[in-house]
């Protein structure tokens, strides 16, 4: 193996920016949750002192639960629209990545899910018109989808390319035909193995597997759940026996398998409903249009913008007085205030 060159996968943004250990994943989520809770608590207190003590905020685990429910909703939507598998997998990745940068309490996954799916249709070159999209989803306006689009793209760091496990599984299945002692029509006769493995890959999307392991490992683990013999055969053809990579792969496949198995269990809808009800009470009031805090924040922003404009006008007026000419000097001589934009949202 060429040690000097960067392997393609390790050059990807998926490897660089979206690869976590289980521990770091938990830590990201808990710190995000803690920061959001602190902010929302402050807002409640500012609105009405002492009101926040009664509110029970969501825990990181409850947030994950809610996101998982909406991940499964993506699958349903993709089935309805007959989107290719790639769109579905990409949208799921976007949704999960989004909630590694934001919390459920700020942005409800229902809206984020719709926008993530719409964004995925575009980034995977399966575009659909916004009207056709929203007309087929009840109680959805085009603005609901578009309003969040930039926020999501920004949260994703504009890193839209995703390496998918289902493609890796396809590759493994193709490469299995290349094995020296493979029966000639293995792909045709054992197609149920492939279908079973694909089901496991789909189940893995409900888990955090793609944030921890590489797509090829997830695909191989899915295959191993369908046919351990084929997996062992293929793995042996890729690595020399007794190599440390092979043993590492074995243990990795084991942990992925547990992840997939736990993810395959259906989401407890009642539990999620409970979470959703509580979310109604504890979501960031600044993000709910029409609420007191929302209006307060809006007013605050407006006030700041106004202040800034006034300051700028005062500076301009003063500069004009000093220059003497009420129509200003020639343009080249004027100082340009570069960091003075009116739409900053601090």
């Amino acid at each position, binding site marked *: *193996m*060429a040690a000097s*060159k*960067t*392997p*393609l*996968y*390790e*050059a990807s943004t998926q*490897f660089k*920016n979206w*690869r*976590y*250990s289980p*521990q*770091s994943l938990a*830590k*990201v989520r808990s*710190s*995000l949750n803690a*920061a*959001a809770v602190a*902010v*929302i608590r402050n807002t409640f207190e500012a609105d009405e002192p002492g009101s926040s003590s009664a509110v029970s905020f969501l825990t990181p685990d409850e947030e994950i639960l809610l996101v998982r429910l909406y991940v499964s909703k993506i699958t349903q939507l993709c089935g309805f629209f007959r989107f290719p598998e790639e769109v579905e997998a990409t949208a799921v990745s976007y949704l999960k990545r989004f909630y590694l940068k*934001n919390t459920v309490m*700020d942005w409800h996954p229902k809206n984020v899910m719709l926008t993530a799916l719409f964004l995925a249709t575009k980034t995977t070159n399966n575009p659909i018109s916004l009207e056709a999209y929203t007309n087929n989803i009840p109680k959805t306006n085009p603005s609901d989808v578009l309003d969040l689009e930039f926020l999501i793209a*920004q*949260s994703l*760091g504009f890193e839209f390319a995703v*390496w*998918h496990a289902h*493609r*890796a*599984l*396809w*590759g*493994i299945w*193709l*490469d299995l*035909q*290349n094995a020296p002692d493979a029966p000639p*029509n293995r*792909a045709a006769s054992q*197609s149920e193995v492939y279908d079973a493995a694909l089901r496991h890959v789909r189940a893995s999307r409900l888990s955090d597997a793609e944030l*921890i392991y*590489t*797509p*090829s*490992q997830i*695909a*191989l683990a899915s295959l191993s759940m369908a046919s351990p013999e084929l997996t062992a055969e293929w793995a042996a053809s*890729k*690595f020399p026996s007794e190599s440390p*990579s092979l043993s*590492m792969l074995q243990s*990795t496949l084991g*942990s992925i398998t547990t992840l997939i198995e736990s993810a395959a269990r259906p989401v407890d809808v009642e539990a999620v409903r409970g979470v959703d009800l509580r979310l109604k009470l504890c979501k*960031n009031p*600044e993000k709910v249009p029409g609420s007191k805090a929302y209006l307060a924040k809006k007013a605050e922003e407006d006030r700041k913008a106004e202040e800034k404009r006034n300051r700028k006008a005062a500076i301009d007026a003063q500069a004009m007085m000093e220059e003497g000419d009420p129509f200003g000097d020639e343009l080249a001589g004027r100082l340009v205030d570069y960091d003075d934009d009116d739409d900053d949202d*601090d």
Partner: protein
Amino acid sequence: MANRMNWLQGKTVRKNTPSASHSRSSSTPQVQSTSSTIFGGGVKDPSGRITEYSSDDDQCPVCKSDKYLEKKLRLLVSSCYHKMCESCIDRLFTLGPAPCPICNKVLRKLAFTPQTFEDLGVEKEIAIRRRVAKEFNKRLEDFSNLREFNDYLEDVEDITFNLINDVDPVGTEARIAAYREANTALTLLNTQREEAYILSLRQAEEQDRKEKEARAEELRREEEEERQEKESGRREIIERLERAEGSDAVNVVRRTKRERAEREASRKGVAPGKGAQALLRARMAAAAATAATKDTPHIPLQDDYYAYEDMFVLQSTYVDPLSEAVRKDREGIMRAGGYRVEEAWERAVRSAVAGLDLWPLESDRDAFQSSHAFDPSGDAIMSAA
């Protein structure tokens, strides 16, 4: 009156017809003209677009003969702007100045001009304006300011109006005489300037015409040469075919043509700048040469990634239900954008082996710290990277 007649007479031009040519006419300047072109009244038109005015209803007011009876009836205009036919003019004025039968003003035979405009008022006005313009030819440069020039122009217009409408003819003529007296030198100078300007215009026009002719000549010569060349080439082929008995005729023709093309090329090369086109081509070639030397070779993005080439061997074909539709598509509609199943396979197999032996992250990574930042409101702020 006499004074007034003089200046009108100065411009009077007789048509050079046999009936009008007699001993008296030779003493005045005459301009040659064809029968259809006249230099009537104030209008001088060498281009011949302005013709003498005549209509079928013409009738001589003196002898009452008209076009119907007298096909050759031609009415001329006197200096007092009364029309009469040529025979009447001959009859009345051959023996010297005589009064006009209509207004009794004394006229001479030479004071008759052909008619240009249907309206004799226009005829008169143009004549007067031409005369005035000749006398009053001062320019803006001759005045110290615009105001004076404008005053002068108004004066001139005033005089012109008086002359046209016969308002105070004596006083007006006196004003003209006084002006002429005072500005003889300047008027002469301006006249010369005007003439020089007209001359220069005419010369430029002449120059243009000559150049155009030369170009046309050049073009004609080149075409002729080319034609001759082609002719001689054809003859040459025939001659060679005659001489080369038995050998391949097609070959002979082809060889001859090639030789001729070479000769042609060398001839064009030897005579640089012969035609404007050759020059242009040479220039373009030179420009291309300099551009070629300046342009550094394009280096495409050279990324040096390990693409797991040693981990898989791509087969020429696979049993693959997924891509069956694309492969069975005979018209290639599904492959229209350049889609190749082999590339899709390669990508899949590559992603199957990519990162197989990557250990999952075990502990917190630094990347987590650097790539996440939170602002107080809980919104993510993307790192600069």
